[in-house]
């Protein structure tokens, strides 16, 4: 009995001592190699996994480029991928893991505004920089001093869509919008910029992207008498709406959101996708780029993954390279505050998506171009009417 207790006591002592030694050793290890870990939070599974998987490939490439080109300051930069599943709850717990367990100074992510917003609320008080490649919710503008994005706010996209409709002389608009932050925000901005000088929104409907019955949603449009239809949603639902509208014999000019530029969109909507117009934040187009850095990026990406990168890949790449630059510029330890100070003071960065410059809110300053779908490809919209 006594000897058993003694053995148990010794075992407990040894394990406690082991744990203390292990914990003590941790910081020593990381200091020696001077490793910097960057968190990457993307929807790798779930409905939005298409964005996340693309971003992940681009970041894998960016990590290698960063260590080869920029990481000259003797630091080895690695990325830790976490899956947000496109869902705010999972996104926040993944971000908390990155911040408290991995102690990352910066997080790249998320692809969806609905996840980036709650994650920003976790990153800001922990002084961790959050750079989103493509989150566009207007609410992110004032999310905090550590929150950045290299994609313009929806204010810009919704405004550009409305400007296009106005410039083509349309006067009666119909709006379908996805019932989430993104859809609601751009629909509202479109309405605000479109309804004046006798123009008005004659039909406004919101939908859930979980529906399987698109006919019920699109049917009221037939009797709405609109000459232009703005679909404020992602590519899946926009494709379903276009397809149903074609089957219902609706012939109006459709305007989509930036999120429709995805090769799956054309696969899903088929011929119904022809002629839809959408605004895209200017700066990246794999086919017609003049930017040397973009060309190098497209070449390297194609060599490694076998296809031409789209905007999601390019914006993810630039987000990571920005952090990489910030890390390389530091002579001491890398912290969230140090990265933030670098981003605020860097002026303009020439990336594969064009020049990136932040305003005082961490929003990027860039223009928007209008594009369309022609013969199954995304092409710039011809400027001549």
């Amino acid at each position: 009995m006594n000897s058993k207790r003694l053995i148990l006591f010794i075992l407990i002592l040894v394990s406690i001592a082991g744990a203390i030694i292990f914990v003590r050793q941790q910081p020593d290890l990381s200091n020696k190699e001077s490793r910097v870990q960057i968190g990457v939070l993307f929807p790798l599974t779930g409905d939005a996994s298409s964005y996340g998987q693309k971003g992940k490939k681009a970041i894998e490439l960016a990590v290698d480029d960063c260590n080869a080109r920029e990481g000259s300051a003797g630091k080895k930069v690695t990325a830790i991928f976490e899956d947000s599943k496109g869902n705010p709850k999972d996104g926040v717990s993944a971000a908390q893991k990155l911040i408290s367990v991995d102690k990352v100074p910066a997080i790249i992510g998320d692809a969806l505004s609905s996840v980036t917003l709650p994650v920003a609320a976790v990153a800001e008080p922990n002084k961790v920089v959050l750079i989103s490649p493509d989150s566009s919710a207007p609410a992110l503008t004032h999310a905090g001093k550590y929150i950045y994005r290299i994609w313009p706010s929806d204010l810009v996209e919704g405004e550009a869509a409305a400007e296009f409709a106005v410039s083509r002389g349309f006067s009666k608009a119909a709006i379908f919008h996805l019932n989430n932050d993104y859809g609601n925000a751009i629909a509202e901005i479109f309405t605000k910029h479109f309804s004046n000088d006798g123009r008005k929104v004659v039909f406004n409907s919101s939908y859930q992207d979980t529906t399987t019955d698109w006919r019920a949603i699109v049917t009221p449009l037939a009797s709405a008498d609109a000459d232009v239809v703005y679909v404020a949603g992602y590519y899946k639902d926009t494709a379903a709406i276009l397809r149903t509208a074609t089957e219902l014999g609706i012939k109006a000019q459709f305007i989509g959101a930036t999120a429709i530029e995805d090769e799956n969109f054309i696969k899903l909507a088929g011929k119904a996708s022809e002629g839809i117009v959408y605004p895209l934040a200017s700066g990246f187009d794999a086919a017609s780029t003049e930017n040397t850095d973009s060309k190098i990026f497209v070449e390297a990406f194609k060599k490694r993954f076998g296809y031409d990168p789209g905007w999601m890949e390019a914006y993810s790449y630039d987000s990571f390279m920005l952090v990489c630059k910030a890390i390389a510029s530091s002579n001491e330890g890398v912290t969230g505050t140090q990265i933030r100070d670098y981003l605020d003071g860097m002026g303009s960065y020439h990336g594969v998506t064009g020049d990136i410059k932040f305003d005082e809110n961490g929003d990027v300053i860039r223009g928007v171009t209008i594009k369309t779908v022609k013969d199954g490809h995304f092409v710039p919209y011809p400027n001549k009417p």
Partner: protein
Amino acid sequence: MTQLLINALTSACLSLLISVSFWLIYATTRTFYITHAATITLGAYSCYWLTRQWGMPFPIAVLISIVVVATTFSAIDKVLFRGLRSAPFGWVGLVASIGLYVVLQNLISLRFGDETQVLHTTPIMEGQQIGDAFVSNSQILIVIISTFLFAGVVFLLENTKLGRAIRGVASNPDMCILLGIDKNLVIGWAIAIGSGLAATGGILSGLDSDINPMMGFRLLLNSVVVMIIGGASGIRCLPLAAIFLALAQHTTAYYLDAKWMDAVAFIILIVYLIWKPLGLGGRHFKKIEI
């Protein structure tokens, strides 16, 4: 207005088909069989796989998918659920069926990805014009096939030996054993037929609005509401319930807003559970007390 009625009829036919397939399994096994959602999805995906990866002609792929899904789920029932039916708690079957659903749905996601896939092979075009309404080919297919299959199930239940056995097991399983009806065999057939019908429903829905790994659950949810307001004791009132629910949903989307469609389905469900808990076709039977 014509368009609204035609659309409602299409959704009603689809949920009728799936609710009758669910009823066959629910009534005989007394299990709230959530795995059915995976059956629906699997039917659509196997059809997609056979046509895309193997280049099979569409009708043959449909037939093979239905037969394969029907036999697979009948076999799964024999291996997994038969033993659970004698468990002391009624919940065991439900929990096992949820578990199996999650596993199957994830397997489909792993193999085919979470993205929406296109099942139809014909180009998207304007539907046939009837008055001021447009009807697509997939809608015509849904209405004809669903009505035909529902009539087939009614015929089976009313006029064949197997059908009478299914009704027998549904109303009193213990008595069936006394009368020498092989309960497990009857359940096996009911699951095979129910799964085959569900696979058909999945393929039809896929033709109409593309396929993704979550599609089955969404279709099943609506159909379960139809089954409950139709009365789970028989299938006579299912068509009425299906049309009622579809009309309510489509009118809501037309006059109010599409985001309320799901809410309307569940409001109707709650009203029914309070006001007529046995559904449209439900009757109270006198119990014989001994």
